[in-house]
């Protein structure tokens, strides 16, 4: 699997934390869907910013101020190129995915009273569609938007395999639909959704398409123009960057008409006591001093991933997924929650172990140095759908090895033994 182009051992050396021990065992970190680790290059970029260039952006004319601004804006260029945005102005820095999604939802409700934003207005009789597999961050903001505007909140159901019910798409997305927002790759199930199919239907009925790419941008090539979507959210800390920075991408013509969400410094054009006009995107949506060091760190993470190549990253993780699904199928009493074949799914595998609560599974794995996540993964409706309180989830990243998957499989077998 480790071709000469992709050398997982070399990659592991770039991540200082991977030399750690936990309970006297080498750390086996299988929780990258929760948050990923950070390579040395990202840590250095953040330290270098504070040590050598620290200053506020966009307002100081002194040397440090212009260096800081240059570094910060260079990250915007890197992110734009990484997702093939049509222009750098389409990249808005936010705190994380959750803030990017809330920004869209609040901007849309602000459209109700903003002249020139008529195309974003929604109200009674209009419908907002999500899926049953959404992370709460792409579910609750839309429920709240529906509550504020009187629109109807709807969702596409999922089947026993953890996939969208194809036959529901044309019925649920209809002439009344104004927004379709869905997850690219599910954090709870690993499912990769059929973006082209959903975009085609949504656009056929004139709805806006929002993509939650929190779990796809770190793991596969994502080209916003090829996907044909309208708006997209992702988060720095899951793509080997720091916490505290995320991205809203939007087609420029849309961003240019969207009303602001947060107001403050840097988002204005001119302020008068009688009224204010707003800056053009992206600055309209970046009120106040931004997360400068974090954005620069994200730029370093993008450079790091670009150097490896997202096709190579995807190949590596697809191979791991196939390997893991096959190995996990051999554990007695283990049931995969989500697609059990390595097709249209990513390297995030949820499972249930007969007779053992997920919190006991994860705690006993932790005692063996293996970090996984247990819970509803902020996607409680998924657990409800499968009639379980929680799942245990193992998720992989660029630094994951097949030896670590072997450790997981042996570890889970041990858990079963203890509880037998």
């Amino acid at each position: 699997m480790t071709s000469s182009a992709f050398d997982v051992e070399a990659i592991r050396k770039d991540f200082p934390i991977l030399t750690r021990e936990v309970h006297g065992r080498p750390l086996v970190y299988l929780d990258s869907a929760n948050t990923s680790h950070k390579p040395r290059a990202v840590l250095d970029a953040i330290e270098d910013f504070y040590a050598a260039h620290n200053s506020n952006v966009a307002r100081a004319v002194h040397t440090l101020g212009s260096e800081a601004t240059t570094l910060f804006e260079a990250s915007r260029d890197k992110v734009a190129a990484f997702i093939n945005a049509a222009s750098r102005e389409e990249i808005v820095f936010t705190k994380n995915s959750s803030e990017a999604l809330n920004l869209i939802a609040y901007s849309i409700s602000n459209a109700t009273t903003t002249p020139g934003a008529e195309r974003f207005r929604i109200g009674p009789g209009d419908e907002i569609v999500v899926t049953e597999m959404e992370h709460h961050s792409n579910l609750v903001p839309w429920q709240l938007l529906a509550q504020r505007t009187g629109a109807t909140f709807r969702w596409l159901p999922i089947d026993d395999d953890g996939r969208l019910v194809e036959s529901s798409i044309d019925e649920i997305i209809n002439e009344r639909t104004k927004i379709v927002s869905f997850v690219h790759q599910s954090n709870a199930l690993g499912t990769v959704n059929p973006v082209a199919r959903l975009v085609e239907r949504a656009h056929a009925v004139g709805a806006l398409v929002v993509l939650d790419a929190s779990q796809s941008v770190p793991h596969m090539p994502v080209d916003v123009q090829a996907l044909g979507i309208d708006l997209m959210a992702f988060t720095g800390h899951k793509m080997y960057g720091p916490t505290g920075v995320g991205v809203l991408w939007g087609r420029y013509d849309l961003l240019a008409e969207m009303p602001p969400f947060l107001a403050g410094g840097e988002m204005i054009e001119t302020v008068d006591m009688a009224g204010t006009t707003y800056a053009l995107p992206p600055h309209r949506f970046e009120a106040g001093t931004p997360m400068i060091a974090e954005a620069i760190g994200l730029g370093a993470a993008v450079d790091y991933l670009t150097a490896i190549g997202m096709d190579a990253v995807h190949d590596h993780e697809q191979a791991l997924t196939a390997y893991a699904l096959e190995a996990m199928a051999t554990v007695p009493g283990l049931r995969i929650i989500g697609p059990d074949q390595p097709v249209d799914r990513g390297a995030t595998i949820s499972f249930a172990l007969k007779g053992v609560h997920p919190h006991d599974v994860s705690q006993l794995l932790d005692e063996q140095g293996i970090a996984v996540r247990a819970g509803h993964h902020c996607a409680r409706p998924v657990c409800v759908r499968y009639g379980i309180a929680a799942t245990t989830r193992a998720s992989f990243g660029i630094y994951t090895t097949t030896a670590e998957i072997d450790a997981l499989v042996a570890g889970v077998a041990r858990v079963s033994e203890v509880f037998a």
Partner: protein
Amino acid sequence: MSGLSMESMYQEIILDHYKHPHHRVLLEDFDAEVHHVNPTCGDEVTLRVQVRDGAIAALGWQGEGCSISQASTSVMSDLVVGKDIASALALQELFLGLMQSKGSAHLGDEDADALEDAVAFEGVAKYPARVKCALLGWMAMKGAVAQTEGARP
């Protein structure tokens, strides 16, 4: 025990109580019933008590959840059935203190004797996320007893 270390949170006593819980039956004749949940693990317990002459004459429960919550409820039941309410609540205080010690408690012989099987949960105190699991049944017992006291003139 299957190669698990002495430091493991999963002491044999805990696993035994989880696999074979005591008093896990709902009383037909009871003075108070409570339902407690622990959102961390989604643990639930429904617990009923029967109080006679100031003592816990009988206690039974039904529950679902992680091994720590279920085993701890089982151990608690063994400890308090037959005890007068003041002693049961004193034990509850003692166990609560142990759980809130962040793993730094040094139980004296007397306290350790009083807690019997419950000392097996000492290791749980090091894991803040799991402390609520161990306390679930104890809190339910306290709540149920308080109800019976409030009901009396």
